[in-house]
C-alpha cells in the first residue's frame, strides 16, 4: 500500500471508535436515507455541521476524510455536468447551441454535489472508525432475525469479512502487477478509452489468476480451521451497548426529526434563499 486509501481503518482511540459497531451501522444507514431526504441548504448546512462534529470527535484528521472524496471526484464532476445540462427549470442564465443552463439547474446541481459529498464522507467515517471485523459482527448481529427464514447470515458475514480483509492485499497485488508490467514497457497512462481498457488486460489476467490461487488456498485454510464444524459457533467478542450508544440513538432520532421537519416545512425558505445567493456570490 503506497498511500493511505479510501475506506481504510484509521486507528485512534476516540469516542466514535469505541461506539458499538451496531450503533454506527444504524446511524450510517439512517444518515444516508436522511441525506437523500434533505431538500434545503439549511438542511445540508445542519448535516455538514453534524458530520464535522463527528469527524472532530473521532480524531481522524479532516484532510484524511477530505481525501476520501478524491476517489469519487470524477463521479462528482460527472454528475455536476449532467445535472447542469439536463435539469432545466427556472430562469435561463446561459444558452449556447444545445447547452441550456438554468437557475434551477444550478440550484439542483449544487445540492446534488453536497449530497454526494456528504454521503461519501459519512460512509467513509464508518470505515475509518470501525474495523472490518466489527462491521461484520454488527451486520451479522443486526441481520440475525433473518436466520429464521433460512438466510445464511453467518456465511454472508464471513464472506464480507474476508472480502474486506483482502482489499488491501489485492490492492497491493495490483500495484505489484502494474509495476511489473510497466517494467516491461506497458503503457497504462495514456491512450484512448478503449486503448486503456486493452492495456489493462496484462494487469487483469494475472490479478484474476492470483485471486483464484488465493481463493483456493484460503478455502483450504478455512477448512483446516474447522469452518462450519458446528452449528453452535461461539463468539469471542460480545457486542455491548453502552451509555454513549444510547445517547447516540437519541441524537440520531433528533437529527432525523429535525431534517424531516426542515424538508416538509416551508419555514426555512427565506434563509435558504439567502444561503443560495451567498453560494452563487462565491
Amino acid at each position, binding site marked *: *500500500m*503506497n*498511500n*493511505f486509501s479510501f475506506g481504510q481503518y*484509521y*486507528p485512534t482511540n476516540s469516542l466514535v471508535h469505541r461506539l458499538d459497531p451496531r450503533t454506527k451501522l444504524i446511524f450510517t444507514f439512517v444518515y444516508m436515507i436522511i441525506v437523500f431526504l434533505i431538500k434545503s441548504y439549511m438542511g445540508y448546512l445542519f448535516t455538514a455541521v453534524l458530520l464535522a462534529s463527528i469527524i472532530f470527535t473521532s480524531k481522524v484528521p479532516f*484532510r*484524511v476524510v477530505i481525501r476520501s472524496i478524491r476517489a469519487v471526484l470524477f463521479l462528482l464532476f460527472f454528475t455536476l455536468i449532467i445535472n447542469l445540462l439536463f435539469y432545466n427549470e427556472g430562469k435561463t442564465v446561459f444558452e449556447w447551441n444545445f447547452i441550456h443552463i438554468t437557475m434551477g439547474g444550478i440550484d439542483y446541481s449544487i445540492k446534488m454535489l453536497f449530497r454526494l459529498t456528504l454521503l461519501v464522507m459519512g460512509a467513509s467515517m464508518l470505515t475509518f472508525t470501525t474495523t472490518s471485523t466489527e462491521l461484520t459482527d454488527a451486520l451479522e448481529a443486526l441481520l440475525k432475525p433473518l436466520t429464521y427464514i433460512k438466510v445464511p447470515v453467518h456465511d454472508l458475514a464471513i464472506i464480507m469479512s474476508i472480502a474486506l480483509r483482502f482489499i488491501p492485499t489485492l490492492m497491493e497485488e495490483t500495484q*505489484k*502487477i502494474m*509495476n*511489473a*508490467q*510497466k*517494467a*516491461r*514497457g*506497458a*503503457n497504462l497512462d495514456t491512450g484512448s478509452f478503449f486503448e486503456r481498457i486493452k492495456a489493462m*488486460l*496484462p494487469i487483469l*489476467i*494475472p490479478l484474476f*489468476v*492470483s485471486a483464484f490461487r488465493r481463493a483456493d488456498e484460503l478455502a483450504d485454510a478455512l477448512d483446516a480451521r474447522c469452518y462450519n464444524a458446528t452449528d453452535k459457533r461461539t463468539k469471542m467478542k460480545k457486542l455491548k451497548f453502552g451509555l454513549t450508544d444510547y445517547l447516540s440513538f437519541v441524537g440520531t432520532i433528533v437529527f432525523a426529526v429535525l431534517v424531516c421537519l426542515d424538508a416538509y416545512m416551508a419555514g426555512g425558505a427565506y434563509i435558504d434563499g439567502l444561503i443560495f445567493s451567498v453560494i452563487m456570490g462565491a
Partner: protein
Amino acid sequence: MSIVVKNLQFTYSANSPYETRALKDVNLTINEGDFLGIVGHTGSGKSTFIQHLNGLIRVQEGEIEVFDIKLTNAKKPKPDLRKLRSHVGMVFQYPEYQLFEETVYKDVAFGPKNLGLSQEEINDRVKEAIELVGLDYEKYKDRAPFELSGGQKRRVAIAGIIAMKPKVLILDEPTAGLDPSGKEQILSLIKNLKEKCSPTIIVISHDIDEITRFANRLVVFNDGKVAFDEPMKELFKHQQELVEMGLDIPLAIKIANELKAKGIKLGENIVTMSDLLREIVIAYNKKNGTNIDVSKIRKSVFNFDFSNSNQEEVFKDE
C-alpha cells in the same frame, strides 16, 4: 558509469499514521560490468531503492542518473520512461505470476512490442530470449505459459525481460520458492545472462551463501541507508556489524572463524566455500606433508551436482 544515485530519500504515506521513511540519503554508483548483490533484511529499503532505478517510483528527493536519463522530482522535463525501461530490466519476485498471454511467444514479445520495434526485430529477440533461458524455441513458442512447470514459467518470465535487451538487469529474489534443482538452474541462467545479454546485473537475495557465489560487489541496506558498499571479498571485514544488523554471514566464514578460534592457521580472504576448502587443503598439506592439488577443488562446491554439467544438461529434466 551506468547508474548514479545521489542523496535519494523516500517516504511512504507521508503525514498519515502509516508514514514510513523507506530511504534516507542513499548514494550509490553502479558501474558497467558490476555483478552487484544487494542484501538487507525485509524493510531495509532495498526494494524501494531498485524500483527507483527504472522509474516505477518517482523520485521525491535527490537525483538519479541512469545512462543519459536524469530522474528528479521536477515535473519537467519528463524523463523518457520507455527508454529508461529498455535500459534497465527488472525481474520482480515470483515473476511467473505476471504471465498473461496465451502463448509463450506472445508473452515474451510483450516487452519488445511496447518498445515499438519492427516485427522482424521482435521475432529475433523473442527467439533469442527463449533460447537464452534454456527453452527450445520451436517446442515452446506456441505452448500456453500456464501449462508449464513452475521453473519453466519463471524462465519464460525472465525471457520476457531480457527480450528487451536491458543493459542493466535487476533480479529481486530470483530463486525464491524454488526447490534446490530449480535454484541451481536459475543461478546458472543468471551467470549466462551476464555473459550473453546484460553486462551489468543486480541481484537482491536473502541467501548470503548464494549471493557470494556470483556477486563481485555487495551493497548492504540497513534502515533505509547504504550501510556498506564493498567488493565482495572485502565486505566481511565488517562481519561483526553485519551480525549486529541481523544479517547472516557466509557459512564458510563461520567455519573459518571457528577453526581459527581453535588455533588453526588459515589464510585471509575466505568468503566462499571454495576459498575455505582451498585454505583447508593448504593447511592440511603443510601439516601432513601431502601434496593435494588445490586446483582440483571445484569452483562452486555448492552445486557439486550441477557444476560439471553444461547449460543443456542442467535443463534436461524439463
